[in-house]
């Protein structure tokens, strides 16, 4: 099972990223758990400069922008 983490303090972009990720997971019936990380000290454990960020199994996939749906699909389905 893969662990997906959405990093972000809860602004509009983080919610958008969460929606998109959920969509991909549901439509492809992926075995994934989505965790929201909202605490600043936890977010800063990752090598990112800006939120929102998407982390898969502790690897940062994207940060500082909202990826498109197809981008997320590419990342998640590859494994």
């Amino acid at each position, binding site marked *: 099972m893969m662990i997906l983490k959405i990093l*972000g*303090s*809860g*602004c*509009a*972009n*983080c919610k*958008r990223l969460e929606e*998109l990720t959920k969509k991909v997971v549901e439509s492809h019936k992926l075995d994934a758990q989505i965790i929201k990380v909202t605490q*600043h*000290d936890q*977010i*800063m454990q990752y*090598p*990112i*400069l*800006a*939120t929102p960020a998407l982390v898969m199994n502790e690897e940062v996939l994207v*940060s*500082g*922008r*909202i990826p*498109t*749906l197809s981008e997320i699909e590419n990342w998640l389905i590859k494994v």
Partner: protein
Amino acid sequence: MDNILTYASSLLVAGFASLFDYLAAHVLLCLIPAFIIAGFMSAMIPKETITHYLGPRSSKWISYPAAALGGFVLAVCSCTILPLFAGIWKRGAGLGPAITFLFVGPAINILAITYTGAAIGFDIALWRLILSIFFGIAIGLMMAWVFRKEELETATKTANNSPFEQKSKLKPAATALFLLLFAMLIAGTLQIGLFTNDLVTFELPIHFSAGVMNILGEFSLSWQGLLMIIMLILIGLSAWKGFNQIQDGLSNWTYITIALIFFTILLASLHAAADATTLALNGRFIAELILLIVILIVAAKNFSKEELGEWIWETWKFVKQIFPLLIVGVFAAGIIREIIPPNWVQTIAGQNTIFANLVGVIFGVFMYFPTLVEVPIAKMFLDLGMARGPLLAYLLADPELSLQSILVLNGVMGRKKTALYVSLVAVFSTLAGYLFGIITSLIG
């Protein structure tokens, strides 16, 4: 009972009058482009163009100016500020530039500066910009110097593959588009003869009845203002359909909304006579028309639908986030202006004294206003007789210091650093307001 009702209704009228005043053409000509530019910077300027210069190996001469510029370019939304601040501090150029970035961000973002200019005056806006950059760098340097020993220990921990290594360049078309958008903002705000002189005057075929004019007059609303409000409501409604679901692609509603915004900007730049009988074309209208068409062509030719969608989404996000609060804030400011006796404000802050400036700063700390709402509040104090020095002191301190942001900072960088930061901001803002007050009284 009757008295209370009349009083309440007069307060409501005052609230609406202040709201309509803020939705007037000259403010919209500034705010609409400012929102579009803010969205553009968020979506089209990659963060790496700036963060590359804020890495651990950058020299002071580069990192401090870059941090100030970064505040302007990257930090329109407060949710990106804290992670970036912590990143620059712990893994990048260090405490000093991080503080500069933290300070400059909320004070000089494009929305705050243009809105201050349109609503209060471009002298205050310009000084807000210059002093914020200067103070940001000065406070950053001081903090770095005071805590230089502690910082030396953290500096050695910086890892190799830092996120600051990434480089990114702005597309040439993006630079061109940015300049065009900026030109649109300037064409909308400059008060020079080339733009304001009437070229052709039209007699309008429609006439408003005296009754309608009276009602409008009571709210000090021109018929052009009324038209603007109707257009804004239409934009809001169609944007809800066209912009809110932009991730699914551009729809017909998207194009309708863009067309509505296009016409609103044009309508706002026309010069309409208050008595509702004539309408005049001016240089501003022609300038805006040309710029809007060029902007649409450049945008459509050089950017993919996804890129444009992202731009629209970022712009719409700012509007959704800021505009409702702004309307409430402006309305409330109009009502409060009726309630507070002017002589209170005049006694406390009517003169440019150190004490008056300090009061301005302290008020900024204890009152938390969301982004941009500090501007109508400041305008309210100006109308009530606050001197321009304390006003600037308030405008400098308010976005930086609020109880809420002090608490958050406390959590991120500890009590000692927060205390020094807060005191430096308070002292500098007070002095800045005081000096500005002296300078304006010498000139004026």
